[in-house]
């Protein structure tokens, strides 16, 4: 049924068109595979959970002006108290950073006091108080929360550790794979740094960074009961349900009323958590959308190219089609001739294209921080392009099958 030999003979007479279509399919496959892969990677990152209950959270970045570093502790305390008393605020705290903020502290953790060598785990440090879990809306899965007596005031240049810490489950499992982290001692520095005891384990909290470099420790976070001095700080606020919008307006005003000597300005100074997440992943989302749009246009253009060239071939061969029809070929035969022809070109194209796709990916792996392309993407791309080719060729092929045998007797 398949008329491979005559098709090959015919294609030999249309080398240029054949090569062009095959090339187009090959390049499209190479680009679409890689683009889909990039999209999937970005979307995977976009949907990583922060570990917080993200609704109703507001972050305010505050900078004291003309204030001595040492005095900021009491000023921060006054601020937090003012915020907690605001109607509509469920809870609030002062901290150095929070998940997806974009900047923060990271350090190595060890199981024994040592200065050298690779640490047992990398983690981010969140300096918080006993209200942290309520503000995050995170679950403690073992142990207890900090008490208010445990919260100390510290200079960021001097603090090395606190006696108690709460860690995320990911960090606990990394340090103590047997799952017995609770109550264990860990070390945040060298020999003269006192140890810290893990008093609680929280289910999940992400690091402040969304970049790929933090992928290895994306859920390794540690809470320390300390309020840092310094002119630069962050207030993280949990609003009561439905109150977020009014809090976003009232909280900065309240702070300015409490003390005027501060800066809360810039488009990142007051952000709802929704905005924080949007900012953190804006480039990832942009990339995914851009790739998606390019893929769609690319597929459309490739399909249009196939339609154009096949229409031309059909037009060129009307007479021959008429002769075949007159010699007894059915409409089905004509239709299947063009479909088979396209399939053959398509197969040649996707074979080259699969090679190109893998090659392009391997090259990008060496140039950029990019993962290896999985074979699934190539397979899906191959099937999609072959189907696209068949769909594109259908209309011209149908037209070809409607050619009347009588055309054989007409001149072109």
């Amino acid at each position, binding site marked *: 049924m398949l008329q491979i030999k005559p098709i090959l003979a015919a294609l030999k007479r249309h080398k*240029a*068109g054949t090569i*062009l*279509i095959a*090339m*187009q399919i090959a*390049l*499209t496959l*190479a*680009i679409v595979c*890689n*683009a889909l892969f*990039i999209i999937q990677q970005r979307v995977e990152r976009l949907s990583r959970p922060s570990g917080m209950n993200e609704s109703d959270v507001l972050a305010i970045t505050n*900078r004291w*002006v*003309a*204030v001595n570093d040492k005095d900021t502790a009491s000023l921060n305390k006054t601020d937090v108290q003012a915020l907690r008393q605001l109607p509509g605020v469920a809870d609030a705290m002062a901290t150095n950073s929070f998940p997806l903020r974009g900047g923060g502290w990271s350090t190595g953790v060890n199981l024994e006091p040592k*200065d*050298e*060598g690779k640490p047992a785990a990398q983690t981010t440090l969140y300096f918080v108080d006993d209200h942290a879990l309520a503000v995050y809306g995170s679950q403690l899965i073992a142990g207890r929360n900090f008490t208010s007596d445990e919260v100390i005031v510290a*200079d960021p*240049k*001097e603090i*090395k550790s606190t006696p108690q810490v709460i860690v995320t489950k990911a960090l606990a499992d990394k340090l103590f794979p047997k799952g017995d982290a609770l109550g264990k001692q860990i070390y945040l*520095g*060298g020999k*003269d740094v006192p140890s810290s005891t893990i008093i609680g384990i929280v289910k999940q909290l992400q690091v402040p960074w969304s970049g790929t470099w933090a992928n290895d420790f994306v859920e390794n976070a540690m809470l320390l009961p300390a309020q840092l001095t310094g*002119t630069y700080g962050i207030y993280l606020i949990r609003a009561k349900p439905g109150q977020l919008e009014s809090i976003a307006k009232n909280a900065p005003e309240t702070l*300015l009323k409490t003390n*005027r*000597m*501060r*800066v809360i*300005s*810039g488009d990142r100074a007051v952000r709802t958590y929704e905005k924080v997440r949007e900012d953190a992943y*804006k*480039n990832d989302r*942009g*990339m995914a*959308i*851009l790739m998606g749009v*390019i893929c769609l*246009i*690319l597929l459309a*253009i*490739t399909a*249009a*190219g196939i339609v*154009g*060239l096949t*229409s*031309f071939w059909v*037009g*060129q061969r009307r007479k021959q089609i008429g002769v075949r029809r007159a010699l007894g070929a059915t409409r089905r035969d004509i239709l299947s001739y063009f479909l088979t022809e396209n399939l053959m070109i398509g197969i040649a194209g996707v074979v080259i294209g699969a090679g190109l796709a893998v090659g392009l990916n391997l090259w*990008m792996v060496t*140039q*950029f*921080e990019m993962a290896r392309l999985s074979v699934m993407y190539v397979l899906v791309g191959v099937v999609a392009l072959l189907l696209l080719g068949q769909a594109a060729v259908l209309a011209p092929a149908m037209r070809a099958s409607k050619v009347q045998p009588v055309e054989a007797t007409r*001149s*072109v």
Partner: protein
Amino acid sequence: MFSYYVQLGLRSLRRNPVLTALMVMAIGFGVAASMITYSVFRAVSGNPIPEKSERLFIPQIDSWGPKYNLPGNEPPYALNYVDAVALMRTHQAKRQTMLYPIELSALPLGGQSIPFTVEGFTAQSDFFAMFDVPFQYGSAWAAADDEHRAAVVVISRKLNDKLFGGENSLGREITLSGHNYRVVGVSENWNLKPRFFAAWGGTSFGNPSDIYIPISRAMDLRVDTAGSNSCRGHIDYGDWDGWLQSNCVWVIPWVQLDSTAEAEQYQQFLEGYAADQQRAGRYGWAPNVRLRNVMQWLDYLHVVPQESSVSLLVALGFFAICLINTIGLLLAKFLRRSGEIGVRRALGASRREIYLQYLIEAGTVGFAGGLLGLLLTALGISGVGLLFQPQIARLAHLDITLVGLTLLVSIFATVVAALYPTWRAAQVQPAWQLKSN
């Protein structure tokens, strides 16, 4: 003849509206995608200081040792305070500065309004001459001001407009984070893209700086860095002075070396310095220094955002596919008119004329595609801000060169794409065509 062929081209385009639309769209989309990504790429990958990039160097010294160094035993990106001061004190380079980014708050005069944040750098007096900072009023502070730890400041034109309404503010005082500074210079709004000297530790594509103060004064006032601070191993500093003595790197040095000989000399000096430190027992490893110029430094830090290079690549591939598509469609279009070509050839048209006519026809397709591409580029560039972070998005803008480039690229590309189909058209044998008719 030219205008006649253009007319013929237009007529032929009208004859096959679907095929024409396909070609124009393919070129339009292809050109637009390439131009949008190129405009971002152009902004981020350019040489920020072309006339001097070969002569400005950043010295690096291994202060961490093989155990803590960056992959490939690369020394840290910046210097610790002790090494930075020692390097500057020897004054081996003709011009030199150390710097770090700062963020202070400014208090407008008059007292009623609320304070706001200003970003800038601490530096030394050579900074301004080294990086060719243009001035509106005044000039850089003198080298003596560095020594005397003077409370002086250079502010940007933007800040001057905000604080002093654009007047000549030389000699007036401003208050930054509670301390007074005397204005000695007002710089024009000046922002290098990328800001190579703070490519590590600061931001390469940040807001323009508003203030510059002497680093010696900043040390006295203990102004902390607003950029990165990277430490290794046993972190034992307990206070400000401890931090200055620690292995934490945060000071960025730059030197100007006007010839290869000077650069080689400086490289030797760096090695000598590191060897001295090893002999003195400060470092327990062999000298490991680097001296990179501006472009080498940007390259080493991969300053071009990954997003923009990946999307440029994809866009170029996309454009290539669009061109292949155009070749195919032009081939179909031209060969469909074999009969017509045969008649023209039989009536005496030379191959040259066939070439000319069909290339011009392709050119009109390219022009139409370019116009569509221009429209899509403009649309796309206004949409970049929706998709990407502002620091990337604001780099993309439509200017005359981009408009010209879009049209030129689309016409040129289409004409190149038309070469093969035109060649095929010119090969048409008049006799054969006439006979078969």
